[in-house]
């Protein structure tokens, strides 16, 4: 599964678990307008670390603002 597909399915899974209504995931969707809260993001980042074996926030120069930023942060870290 591609990094993007993994991230997309995790957003959907966590939104379902946390009973939150997820906005349609487009690249320009602002993360804080996605319907998820900080705990949901913490959950997604922890599961991504388990799945992909990395936490790109450690070395990130800026925090991701949009869903596209978030995906690119993980994609660039995989290269």
């Amino acid at each position, binding site marked *: 599964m591609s990094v993007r597909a993994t991230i997309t399915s995790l957003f959907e899974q966590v939104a379902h678990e946390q009973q939150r209504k997820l906005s349609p995931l487009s690249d320009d969707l*602002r*993360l*804080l307008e996605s319907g998820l809260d900080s*705990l949901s993001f*913490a*959950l997604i980042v*922890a599961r991504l670390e*388990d799945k992909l074996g990395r936490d790109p926030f450690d070395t990130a120069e800026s*925090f991701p*603002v949009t869903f596209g930023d978030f995906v690119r942060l993980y994609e660039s870290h995989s290269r």
Partner: protein
Amino acid sequence: MWLWGSLTASGARPSGSLHGAGARIDLASLAGASSLGGRLEALRGRTVLVAAKDQLTSALALIELDGVVRRMVLCPPDLSADHAPAVMRDSGADAYVTDAGAAAVHGLEGLRVSSGPALQPSALARRRSHDTEWILLTSGTSGAPKLVRHTLASLTSALTAQTAPAGPLVWGTFYDIRRYGGLQIFLRALFQGSLVLASAAESTADFLARAAAAGVTHISGTPSHWRRALMSGATARISPRYVRLSGEIADQAILDSLRSAFPEAIVAHAFASTEAGVGFEVRDGLAGFPASLVGAPGAAVEIDVAGGTLRLRSAGNATDYLGAQAPALKDSEGFVDTGDRVELRDGRYVFIGRSGGVINVGGLKVYPEEVESVINAHPGVRMSLVKARRSPITGAVVTAEVVLLEGAAEAPAEEVVKGEILQACRRSLAAHKVPMTIRIVPALEVSESGKLVRPDA
């Protein structure tokens, strides 16, 4: 000292304002108006729970009640009906201040005073009759709050120890002022200018827009608040001179991010806790704090490291815990053990976690024992260990390791048990206490004394 008296010392009129999400109150208007519906004198000498949901309403009540009531208890907006009766009992409360939003909090008894952010003109003469005790709540092992006793003098000792910055300041804070970190900012703002209060109902971007409109110069929050602000993409709306972090470990990544988001501002991280008060503030942009702060002679706050944890002794320490079975708050030397573990690396102490395994999720404490008791109530569970896992979003998150009962005749699949445990946790625990992940393990290490071996960090 008392709050209103200090704000109006030698006939001065306070020039600042409190900005709530829906209303703005000029402090000077409190000279001839009240938020308590004409009931201020009825509360004189009593012990009062300030249990309004709305922050601005609570802020006004704190200003009006200090010097008037014997004791006031600052209830955070998430005080549950389960714990309200114990808080009333342990504080000896015989009255409470409430508002429309708090009507749903049951278990409160005594004289009820309705309050709101709209002031009513009132011909009151404000006068001081009591050295009011300020009681703050902090979470305890069982999930029930502990009551921490302060005075206005202990709460403002960090403020009076430093020279006041020049000019009127506009403070903003992501914190709730009913918790220690937010209360510090509230008191600073009262003496130094104005304050923009956050609202749980508004987005981070909307709060920052409001703070910008009020001309915010100084702004504070936990590292988690700040990570969220950076993720909002809205930090460019404000241009503060001073950005403060406290309440959680400030790691180098968040300090660097804030430095680049606010190149003109001082980025300072402070150490404070409800019990120990304000410890110190570090402004050099580096995580941790210089070892020279420890044992510095003649310091207003004495800082000590004993057995790897940070201890503080100062006029900012709380007095004690309230309640019949309350533990001691200070050790025999008068120091408060903060429970924060530090390690010396290259001349700097860095924070590595909490002793006793207490987990700090976005500035909120989680006691592993409370979560374990919920997990252990599952009929298929023998024992469990709840611990912290590092998170770049909330600092830490909660995870659990679970040992299942062996040989249960019709043992359900592990995934089913995990699902049931999570459901039970979501039912009875606040969201930040629910484990992110549950791992089924064959065994957990138990020490010679029969206790679970807990990691320190």
